[in-house]
């Protein structure tokens, strides 16, 4: 055994409803594998939950050789106290390592606690991870997306949360071999108690939609969003909103796209009556194609769009929807 412990990259993987690996966790394997190969580090993963064997096997099929699982009924639902105990036990007395998680609500809640417990540097909301001099460099938007920072973490334990679509998921290989090591969670009496989880009506899986049709303040009310919904339905997409319609109660807050809402990068993003504030752009500017419709020809949104119409969305959008409907049914 070498006296100097080897550097590691550990993925904190998450399971989706239905117990498979989340899409973001699969993408994270791509990010982590590249970082590990560029820094000469060992790639591992850890998964917490209940009934997560399938997710562990999926990680192995994606190229992770060693997967730690904390598989226990008490971990079926996220609780900061129980999850923190498992993660801390795993990271304690470890050598230098980089822990990568998706920029999810779970990781945003969990990682700052662990970082504070260990005095470790954490960078949240990364849009990229590079290497310089054999060390990771974390790239993240700051000042509401008005600037992009490249950050070094100076502690042996480095932690980061990474956004969706930073990398493609590696191809799965069923022949891949790896080891699953189960961890025994220590019994922790949680101080924080989850009484119930409530799904909000009309909430959509914006992050996974291939097409997002989003409206801004200029939509004028909830009825207007029904028009956007017709276009979204036609294209099999989801309806989103900038912050003002959510603050005004026209749309549920779960529909908000932006730095404090959903971060999306669909194949097509249609921004309707959205002026293009930095905090909104920061949540959608990685979309493959962007269409903007705005009354104001000088609106900033046109600077970040691929296609634009300067005109009244109430005329433009129904015409787009009808034309596409004819095309798709022909």
């Amino acid at each position, binding site marked *: 055994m070498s006296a100097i412990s080897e550097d590691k990259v550990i993925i904190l993987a998450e399971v989706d409803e239905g117990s498979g690996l989340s899409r973001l966790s699969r993408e994270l394997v791509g990010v982590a594998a590249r970082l590990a190969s560029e820094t000469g580090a060992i790639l591992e993963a850890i998964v917490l939950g209940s009934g997560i064997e399938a997710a562990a096997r999926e990680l192995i099929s994606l190229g992770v050789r060693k997967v730690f699982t904390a598989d226990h009924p008490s971990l079926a639902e996220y609780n900061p106290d129980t999850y923190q105990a498992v993660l801390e036990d795993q990271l304690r007395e470890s050598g230098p390592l980089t822990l990568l998680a998706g920029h999810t609500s779970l990781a945003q809640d969990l990682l700052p606690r662990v970082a504070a417990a260990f005095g470790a540097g954490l960078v949240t909301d990364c849009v990229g991870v590079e290497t310089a001099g054999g060390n990771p460099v974390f790239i993240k938007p700051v000042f509401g997306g008005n600037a992009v920072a490249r950050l070094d973490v100076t502690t042996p334990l480095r932690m980061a949360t990474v956004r969706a679509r930073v990398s493609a998921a590696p191809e799965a290989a069923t022949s891949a071999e790896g080891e699953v090591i189960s961890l025994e969670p220590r019994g922790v009496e949680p101080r924080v108690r989850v009484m119930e989880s409530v799904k909000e009506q009309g909430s959509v899986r914006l992050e996974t939609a291939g097409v997002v049709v989003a409206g801004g303040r200029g939509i004028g009310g909830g009825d207007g969003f029904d028009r956007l919904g017709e276009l979204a339905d036609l294209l099999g997409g989801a309806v989103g909103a900038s912050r003002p319609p959510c603050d005004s109660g026209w749309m549920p807050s779960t529909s908000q796209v932006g730095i404090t809402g959903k971060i999306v990068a669909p194949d097509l993003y249609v921004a309707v009556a959205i002026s293009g504030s930095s905090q909104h752009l920061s949540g959608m500017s990685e979309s493959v194609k962007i269409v903007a419709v705005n009354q104001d020809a000088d609106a900033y949104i046109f600077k970040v769009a*691929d296609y634009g119409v300067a005109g009244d969305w109430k005329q433009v959008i129904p015409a787009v929807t009808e034309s596409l409907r004819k095309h798709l049914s022909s």
Partner: protein
Amino acid sequence: MAVHIAVCMKQVPDPEGPQSSFEIDAQKNRVVPRGLPPVANPYDENALEAAIRIKEAQGARITLLSMGKGLSRAVLLKAMGTGVDDAVLIDADGLEAQELDSYTSARLLAAALRKDDYDLILTGRQASDTNAGQVGLCIAQMLGIPAISVARKVEVSGDRVEVESILPDGFMRVEAPLPALVTVSHEVGELRYPSLLAIKEAKKLPVVSLSIEDLGVETGPGLVVMRSVAAPSRERRCTMVAAESAAVAGEKLADLLIAERVV
């Protein structure tokens, strides 16, 4: 006895400013806000609003805790005029911006919070300049108290705090025993405006000023250090579709999206 609530509030350059006002100083690796007045971090304002609602519902003492370099008195008074009872200010003038990363900020704030007994500590979910979302949860860890993040509703019931915490597809009802820390999101609602009289009266509220030395926290280089900073590269070449009417422009846009295989 009424609950004692601490609200942590950072001052930031107005996040609503145009992109051109966030100037990049590539030599010094920093962002220099040009012509932007300092404002209270909007999420911290939401945290203060949550505190005031608890005070209205059942009575509370609200202490505003703010740390920064050259804190704006006008920004402080405007916040204090909304229903704050007293304030603790930490003067960070002696520290380099690089030293004030999330971890060090949390250590300093936690040290200030240890100087009094608080039942509930509220912070914004994140600051609008660093967009990190770490300080609140780090403070709770350092103080050894339970924490709940991204609240849209905060209520105190007896010796417990009851919170609606935002999830990607809804929310969850969560509770924790006091003392506890809760990070607050904008869904709570905007901070009310103080009257001019209330701002004037706020000048008479008790204020404790602390220096970094008073807190007994060793500071040094940050755990997270800025290597470089740049303007975002998100501008694209936009093909504008024009026609005699908006409806015809819509049809032409659809044709273009089909022709270029976007749909």
